[in-house]
């Protein structure tokens, strides 16, 4: 089966869900999510079955890279993320119903829920396209498809001030970054005369390339890419938007969008990094951005009291580590080595997916019993639900990079690469950042396990839906298994 069938299936699933929502009378619209979940599970399995086309002459392949295992891996990340986001969304649906418009008389009480499940499917398709996009045009359209879907999803809770505010912030700043992206694309197109990344690479590598213009274009594109992945100083939107968005969407943003952003970033940066005349400055800028991101993400998280915001900063911090890998200039790479920014980033994102989604899963389960997302409200969780506490503990351990978790390997690979490339500044900053990380991740653990509960605290047990429980267990097992044997994740990269 050709690769591009996957997106088609996902889009079709999304359409089916919309149709079912519109035309089938359902008692409980949550069953729509099941269509998506089942479908995505199938798609995930199909990922292992697809193969590239025999004939790559068609115009289509200008826009869609074939035979690209990295793209396949990122598609997997997108599918898995969406799948788990749907799991969360099911748990979260009462909040959605509550916070969206009250339906008119006679309308379904869960009106508006169906779209909440269907839209992620389209976002997923967009993310998958992004993974394969190898042309400025396809990058642009798929990126925008995803971004616009996210504008909607972030703002979805119309009765919730936070959600609206987050939506507006995301909209304005997202559009701003789109402006820069387009302007940068225009320049890139102008100086290379092409939209195809391969051709752009060739053009930029020419020694007579106008370096000033190329760097100008790079600056513009860097801004937009950094915005998407949340690299400093273009990360400022992240905490606000993450905090306001519905929890499953925050998870989606922080994993799916970031992952796709990174592969686009990688693809867009590669031509510049491959260009002899400018690579020095490009690397230097990437280094500075990486260092700033590490510092901003890790230090800002330290005084944080809101869990969701903390995870937002954590996502910035992780973007810092990923940038660190990216900035470890690939021109010095050892021949034949698989230790490249691409594999390292892919691995890191794979691990990041597991641990971040686990944290968000716990969070969306908690949202059912308490509105507050303050860290303090996780007080006594170890007693209320040892399982949830343990799951969150594992997630935090992995995020902090404690050995024998997937997150640790992510960091090890980054450091391996950075040290191999002698990026000492980044190593030092990364070290400081990871050290700070211990503190703020363990703060959650401290809240759950060490803080005494107070009088007014709810200490009743927490019900966990079987679906969430199974997902959490699967994620925990995956985190630990990958912590022991990182080959499991590398294996998925082919």
């Amino acid at each position: 089966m050709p690769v591009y069938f996957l997106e088609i299936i996902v889009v079709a699933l999304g359409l089916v869900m919309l149709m079912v929502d519109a035309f089938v009378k359902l008692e409980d619209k949550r069953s729509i999510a099941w269509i998506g979940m089942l479908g995505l599970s199938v798609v995930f399995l199909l990922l292992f079955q697809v193969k590239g086309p025999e004939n790559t002459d068609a115009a289509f392949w200008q826009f869609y890279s074939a035979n690209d295992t990295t793209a396949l891996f990122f598609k997997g990340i997108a599918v898995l993320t969406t799948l788990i986001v749907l799991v969360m969304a099911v748990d979260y649906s009462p909040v959605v119903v509550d916070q969206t418009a009250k339906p008119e008389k006679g309308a379904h009480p869960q009106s508006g829920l169906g779209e909440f499940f269907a839209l992620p499917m389209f976002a997923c398709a967009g993310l998958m396209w992004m993974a394969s996009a190898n042309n400025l045009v396809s990058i642009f359209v798929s990126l925008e498809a995803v971004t616009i879907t996210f504008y909607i999803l972030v703002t979805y809770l119309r009765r919730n001030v936070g959600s609206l505010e987050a939506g507006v912030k995301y909209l304005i700043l997202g559009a701003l970054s789109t402006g820069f992206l387009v302007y940068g694309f225009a320049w890139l197109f102008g100086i290379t005369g092409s939209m195809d990344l391969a051709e752009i690479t060739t053009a930029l590598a020419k020694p007579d390339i106008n370096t000033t213009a190329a760097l100008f274009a790079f600056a513009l594109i860097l801004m937009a890419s950094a915005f998407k992945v949340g690299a400093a100083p273009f990360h400022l939107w992240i905490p606000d938007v993450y905090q306001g968005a519905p929890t499953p969407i925050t998870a989606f943003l922080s994993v799916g969008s970031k992952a796709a952003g990174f592969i686009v970033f990688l693809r867009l940066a590669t031509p510049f990094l491959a260009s002899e005349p400018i690579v020095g400055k490009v690397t230097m800028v990437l280094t500075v951005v990486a260092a700033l991101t590490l510092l901003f993400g890790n230090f800002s998280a330290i005084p944080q009291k809101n869990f969701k915001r903390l995870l937002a900063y954590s996502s910035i911090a992780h973007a810092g580590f990923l940038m660190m890998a990216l900035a470890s200039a690939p021109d010095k790479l050892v021949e034949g080595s698989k230790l490249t920014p691409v594999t390292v980033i892919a691995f890191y994102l794979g691990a990041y997916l597991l641990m971040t989604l686990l944290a968000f899963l716990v969070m969306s389960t908690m949202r059912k019993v308490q509105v507050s997302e303050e860290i303090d409200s996780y007080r006594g969780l170890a007693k209320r639900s040892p399982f949830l506490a343990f799951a969150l503990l594992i997630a935090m351990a992995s995020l902090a990079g404690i050995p024998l978790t997937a997150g640790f390997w992510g960091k090890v690979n980054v450091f391996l690469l950075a040290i191999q490339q002698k990026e000492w500044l980044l190593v030092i900053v990364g070290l400081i950042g990871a050290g700070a990380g211990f503190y703020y991740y363990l703060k959650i653990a401290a809240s759950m396990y060490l803080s005494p509960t107070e009088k007014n605290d709810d200490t009743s047990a927490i019900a966990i839906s079987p679906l969430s429980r199974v997902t959490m267990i699967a994620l925990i097992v995956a985190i630990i298994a990958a912590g022991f044997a990182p080959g499991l994740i590398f294996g998925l990269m082919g």
Partner: protein
Amino acid sequence: MDVNTLAWAVLLLPLLVAASILLGLKRWSGLSSLVSTGSALFTLVMCIMLASGDDGTAMPFHWIQLDDGNFTVDIGLTLNKLSKGMMLIVTLIGFLVHLFSLAYMKDDKGKARYFAGLSLFMFSMTGIVLANNFVMMFIFWELVGVSSYILIGHWFHKESAADAAKKAFLTNRIGDFGFMIGILLVWVLTGSIYFEEIKEAVGGVKNLTLLNIAMICVFCGAIGKSAQLPLHVWLPDAMEGPTPVSALIHAATMVAAGVFMLARVSFIVDITELAATVISTIGALTALVAALMALQQNDIKRILAYSTLSQLGYMVMAQGIGHGGSEAGMFHLYTHAFFKALLFLGSGAVIYACHHRQDIWDMGGLRKKMPITFWTFAIGTAALIAVPFTSGFWSKEVILETALHEGKMLPYVCGMIVAFLTPFYMTRLVIVAFTGKSRTGDADHAKEVGPIMWIPLAILAFMAIFSAYSFISGPFQANGHADIGHLFSHIGLTAILSLVGLIVGVGAAVFLYKGKDEDPISIPLFRDKFYIDEIYNGIVRVFQDAVAAFLDIADRFIIDPVVARAPAVGAMMAGSFLRVFQVGNVQAYAFMFGAAVVALIFFLIL
């Protein structure tokens, strides 16, 4: 039993006894004490058998092998003239002390523990005596410290006893600090820790300065154990232990260990002049200072303790005066062991009879009530103050003769002065404690002690008189200079001076103290031991406790804050600072984006 087994049995039997008491025998305290005493007797018998056997080294036990076998520490037992003789002294005195203790400690609750301690003490001392290498000696050296800690602190619930035990151990540790450095240096210089090998190699050492330093360091160990200046302070305090323990410590074990050790390494002392001078000077000074301190003490045991110090000063001094001095010192150690054990056990009997009163001014008139004790005590005193023809006379004479002969004037003069002082304070003791009227009810009701106590006294009294004569000293193999005939033919300046000292000292004491109920003279400097304890306390307080407290504060308020808290606070502050960027206003964000892009472009294209 062959020699090999015998030697090992001598060493291990006391340990076995101590361990078995500890492991369960202690439930039957009477049995424990009997087993312990029995084992002491048995050891004595075995030592006598050993003494008649051949010299040599019992098959060693490889305690630890390092460096692929190049460095091996053995537990090897040396049997030679020195060690066999010393073993006899140790076991004989030890047995007698055990015997005496049976009665003395009859009603003590911790009797089992006490006897376990005694056995352990015997084990440790045996180890020192038989050691064939420095490390093994050091091991048992330390064990002696532990045993003394246990025994001195036997009545640990008394503040003074607890403190004394601690003090004894720590003071010894300080000496051991030097000892260990000395051992290491000797090892570095000669390449071996075994006495035999060192003896062969020591002649080839080029860096004599370092060898001198090494020897002085080794001597530090002796300073600690044998309570020489300036580490003598533990010994008087050690009187807090039960009196038989004092007898054991002061007569044949522990304090003797230092002297013994010096004799063991006399081959090094022989070629290190500086170290020898240091040794003899310190010994001489100790003899003098301790005698001065003894003048004004009132506690019967403390007087004896200072006399011990003083006598140890003689012995150590002898080790440093060279050419035969070592044998002379050992000879004095040998004679001293008997009369000092006698004196201590005698005082034990007195104390026992007086219901644990120890101040001589609380006694008086005991001569009539405790005749056996008195007479044995008097014999002991006679030997100590070197009344001619007693054992003490001969051995002291030898030391002073040798010093004079070798031209070591400082030791000689000091020794001579002590010869004047010793008769004085000992006579004072006897007169005050035994003559006149009973000054307290306890003394009044004192009765003669039972045979278990006085039999050891009697034996020791016999030894105190005759041990210097070759028919006894022969088997003890401590006959180096005990050629009485030779001494007779040699009566010269020394002997005359000694006699004068004896007469003057005794006379003065009789004159001053006869019939007195309180001390007619008062010399605070002597009574307060030259304030050395106070000075030490001050030093400990300033240089240890104050510095420690200061460092503790530094640790809490400098190191911890700098190493740990500062980065943490820095991170917190950085976090708080970076939050400033998160103002929540979209336009502010956009502004920062714009500024960042401009900066980026600026940086990239310029």
